[in-house]
């Protein structure tokens, strides 16, 4: 079972206008750089993108905004992005803001075959409007639904040919849940190792969730806020 792609052309051809794509990363950390730029080059429109953030103006998912490919964005925080504001205010861009923990859990639920769950997050706020409320042990919760994307874009550190994935530090973030929540999951990685070279106890995402693997080169890994200790 060799899932390694030599180029992204094949998977990009399968993505059509109007697709829903769930995308890993937190800020610019652990984002699938190559998949995003490839999708920008491909130019499909009217996408629904589910990701914690929407990149910055000239990098990450911001590239898709710049190219006006996104119809709807589902995210928890979009404050780093001026293009986002412009397109939202002009009505070009539809936005669904979801609390970060609820977003992570909705993706996990989607991947785990759980159509809905209850959480206290958002009770009594605008987030709860129109949602089913239910009491458990005298406390009120709201129902939130699982999310499954047509495609899932994942960035990992290492993979083997079966698609077992290992992440590095906080670049893990949403990637493991995103990997489970795509009908077709494509993982881009910095390094591919031979089958059996990853310790089975240390694999973060089992290859069962991954349909295709792509090895990217020259990762930019831009830093949003460089903070260092006083020398």
């Amino acid at each position: 079972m060799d899932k390694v792609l030599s180029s992204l052309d094949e998977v990009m051809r399968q993505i059509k206008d109007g697709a829903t794509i769930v995308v890993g990363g937190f800020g610019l950390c652990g984002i699938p750089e190559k998949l995003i730029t490839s999708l920008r080059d491909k130019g499909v429109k009217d996408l629904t993108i589910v990701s914690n953030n929407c990149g910055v103006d000239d990098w990450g998912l911001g590239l898709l905004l710049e190219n006006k490919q996104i119809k709807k964005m589902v995210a928890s925080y979009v404050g780093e992005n001026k293009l986002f504001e412009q397109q939202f205010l002009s009505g070009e861009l539809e936005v669904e803001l979801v609390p970060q923990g609820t977003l992570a859990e909705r993706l996990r639920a989607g991947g785990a075959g759980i159509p809905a769950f209850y959480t206290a997050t958002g009770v009594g706020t605008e987030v709860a409007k129109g949602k089913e409320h239910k009491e458990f042990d005298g406390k009120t919760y709201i129902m939130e639904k699982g999310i499954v994307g047509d495609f899932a874009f994942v960035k990992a550190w290492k993979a083997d040919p079966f698609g077992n994935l290992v992440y590095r530090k906080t670049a893990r973030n949403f990637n493991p849940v995103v990997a489970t929540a795509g009908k077709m999951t494509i993982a881009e990685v910095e390094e591919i190792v031979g089958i059996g070279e990853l310790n089975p106890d240390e694999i973060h995402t089992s290859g069962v969730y991954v349909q295709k693997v792509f090895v990217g080169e020259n990762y930019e890994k831009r830093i949003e806020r460089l903070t260092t200790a006083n020398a």
Partner: protein
Amino acid sequence: MTGRKRILERAVKELQDGMCVNLGIGMPTLIANMIPEDVDVMLQTENGLLGIGAYPKELEVDPDLINAGKETVTAKAGASYFDSAESFSMIRGGHIDLAILGGMEVSKNGDLANWMIPGKMVKGMGGAMDLVQGAKRIVVIMDHVNKHGESKVKNTCTLPLTGQGVVHCLITDLAVFHFPESGMELVELQKGVTLDEVKVKTEAVFVVSESLKVNK
């Protein structure tokens, strides 16, 4: 001492040895640098790390290692990385002892508004709504009044809520309040602040604790 410094110095006292703590983005993040050496806490950041260390030296900077404010950080001994669902399992499941968050408004019944101002661009709530519902203790730190001199401690929040009845402790540049079921209670006056000043600058109805502490 500036108001901000007073707030932070009081807030750091909320951290007790052995706690796992989430510090919100902005002013709360500054608390990390003020923790006394004999208080051993593990700082959690919701993007997937328990055990935040100091900011990195230039050569240590790693783009794969950031906090929820997207700042480059380090990890200390005993740290662990995890995914976002696991991170919020910790938070939502009540495994984080304390969260210290910034506030725009706090109401007398412990409502918190800290994520949006109508008419301004909505940036999103990030993890704030999860934190206020999940962490065992919620401490809010903010200026007592806004730049127009209006009280941010309200009878009812005017801004959209982050959570209802979620605040356990409010620390401002003027005072500290608790929120027992019996109602909002003034428990401390910051150094040099009088009860009268707090009464004048607080819109919310509150009771004064019988054991009111006057910091000197």
